[in-house]
């Protein structure tokens, strides 16, 4: 059965792994370059002067590649579920080949188990390698610039692509078993991927732990924009929300000051204003990765178990 599963996957697997290998060459070369650029850019040692410009200059390197790579790794698990998960059983049911497969001397359970194991593991492995590459390639930017913790980057690093691949693949298999037709099962998997992404990103992951809150007073320096006192939010933190409060304690969207405002001379325009930041500290990154992975993989296991039960019980 392993041979048959592999034989059915072979063409696609070779294509996907081939593409990944080509991408790996590109990412290894440019990723190495990014590390040299980071060392030479002065971003890491900058503590005075126009650090923003230095950072922008560094972030401009491989900007196009970065802006393409992000969406690709973001949707890759969905693609995998749609093209490898959904047709796994649905295509056999639709084309009638299940009547050939299920009347060989192999139980239906073993048939499905082998298919899921071979195709699923090949899918998870390619996603894992892809994620490893992207995580490594992005780490120079992640450390100095945007947070790898906040969406959408959280789903594009380390364990999360693999967890998403497990979830969508399992959903695709179950959808195929239930719907029994390839295209509708693929469409259902797409919808499920989008829906689950929204639910996880908007509600589940931000609430895995109670976000921390810091409130700092707004202070106007001699020149430049106002700064917030108190704990500094670093690039490794995930800022969930930021709210500005006026002296009366009410939330405000902006503060209007005209140049001839009397407060401008005394630098007192922001007196009484505070900013409250809700965030997850960077130290929660790995706990959140593991917990989110646990949730998605748990759902995947439940859906696969359901697929096995349905296939065994229901008449074809």
């Amino acid at each position: 059965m392993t041979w048959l599963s592999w034989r059915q996957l072979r063409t696609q697997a070779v294509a996907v792994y081939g593409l990944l290998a080509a991408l790996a060459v590109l990412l290894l070369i440019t990723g190495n370059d990014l590390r040299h650029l980071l060392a030479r850019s002065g971003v890491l040692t900058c503590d005075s002067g126009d650090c923003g410009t230095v950072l922008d200059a560094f972030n401009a390197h491989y900007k196009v590649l970065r802006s393409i790579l992000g969406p690709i790794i973001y949707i890759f698990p969905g693609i995998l579920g749609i093209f490898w998960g959904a047709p796994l059983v649905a295509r056999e049911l639709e084309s009638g080949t299940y009547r050939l497969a299920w009347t060989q001397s192999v139980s239906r359970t073993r048939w499905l188990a082998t298919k899921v194991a071979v195709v699923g593991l090949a899918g998870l492995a390619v996603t894992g390698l892809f994620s490893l590459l992207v995580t490594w390639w992005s780490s120079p930017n992640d450390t100095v610039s945007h947070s790898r913790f906040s969406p959408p980057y959280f789903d594009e690093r380390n364990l999360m692509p693999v967890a998403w691949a497990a979830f969508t693949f399992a959903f695709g298999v179950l959808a195929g078993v239930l719907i029994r037709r390839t295209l509708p099962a693929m469409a259902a998997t797409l919808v499920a991927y989008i829906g689950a992404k929204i639910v996880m990103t908007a509600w589940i992951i931000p609430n895995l732990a109670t976000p921390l809150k810091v409130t700092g007073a707004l202070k106007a320096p001699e020149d430049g924009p106002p700064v917030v006192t108190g704990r500094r939010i670093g690039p490794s933190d995930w800022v969930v929300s930021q709210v500005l409060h006026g002296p009366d304690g009410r939330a405000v969207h902006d503060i209007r000051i005209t140049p001839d405002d009397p407060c401008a001379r005394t630098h007192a325009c922001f007196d009484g204003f505070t900013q409250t930041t809700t965030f997850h500290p960077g130290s929660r990154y790995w706990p959140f990765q593991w917990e989110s992975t646990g949730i998605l993989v748990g759902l995947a296991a439940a859906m696969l178990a359901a697929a096995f039960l349905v296939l065994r019980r229901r008449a074809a």
Partner: protein
Amino acid sequence: MTAALEAAGLGKRFGKRWALQDCTVAVPTGSICGLVGPNGAGKTTLIQLAVGLLAPTAGSITVAGGTPDGRPAQLAKVGFVAQDTPTYAQLTVADHLRLGAHLNPGWDAALAGRRIDQLGLDPKQKAGKLSGGQRAQLALTLAVAKRPEVLILDEPVASLDPLARRDFLSSLMELVTEHGMTVLLSSHLVADLERVCDHLVVLVASRVQVASDVDELLATHRRISGPRRELSTLPADQQVIEASHTDRQTTAIIRTAQPIHDPAWSVTELTLEDIVLAYMAHRGDGQPVRRQLAEVRAS
């Protein structure tokens, strides 16, 4: 007589609709049994129950001494060629043989290889590129090379042209003669079955109308015609299968083990197709069929 396939009160319901109901039938071991009936009679349902693709709603079925429950040991005993002879379009002929070898403990590689040679199939050809007849032959090869005790075929020649149909059936005959197995073959065309079958089951509206050896069917069924008269006056051993009356004449197909002596009747022999059609015509019209059925069961 031992039965290679035996069903008792077998029924299968899909939702509210019974695809097969109260089906009791036995296929003798070593026979080549034709399963014939109009479309929708439940032939495919009966066959899928026999190979374990479906599970019965009611009753029981045993094939080659076991219940078709999807366990590998049972699956190994039964070869199956499904309707439209499905194969993996992307896999080559050679791949299909490897598939068979990997998935069946009793795989006869020599037999499979020899068959592919004889058929002149290119092992590197993808199954999706084969003609309907070649694909059916490939499916038959897969089913036979697993060396089953019972070989079940569901309308294997329905979609084939006459030449491919003849080739397929003669291949089947050769394989059966050579390797000896019980065969259950369904078709809605009697002509296909007449050539190969020695036993026949007529299934109409999920009921077995008649199940008998072909020779016995031919020997015991006659068409009688003569001046118009009531058929209830016939001797008790003559069962009416089908009757029609005109103003002057009565024609009937009857089943009897005895010679017909009444000089008023002109008696003609029947072809297998005539007999099967007579039984099939009884769909829905209960009485004579019931009597017939009861008699067949008792014998």
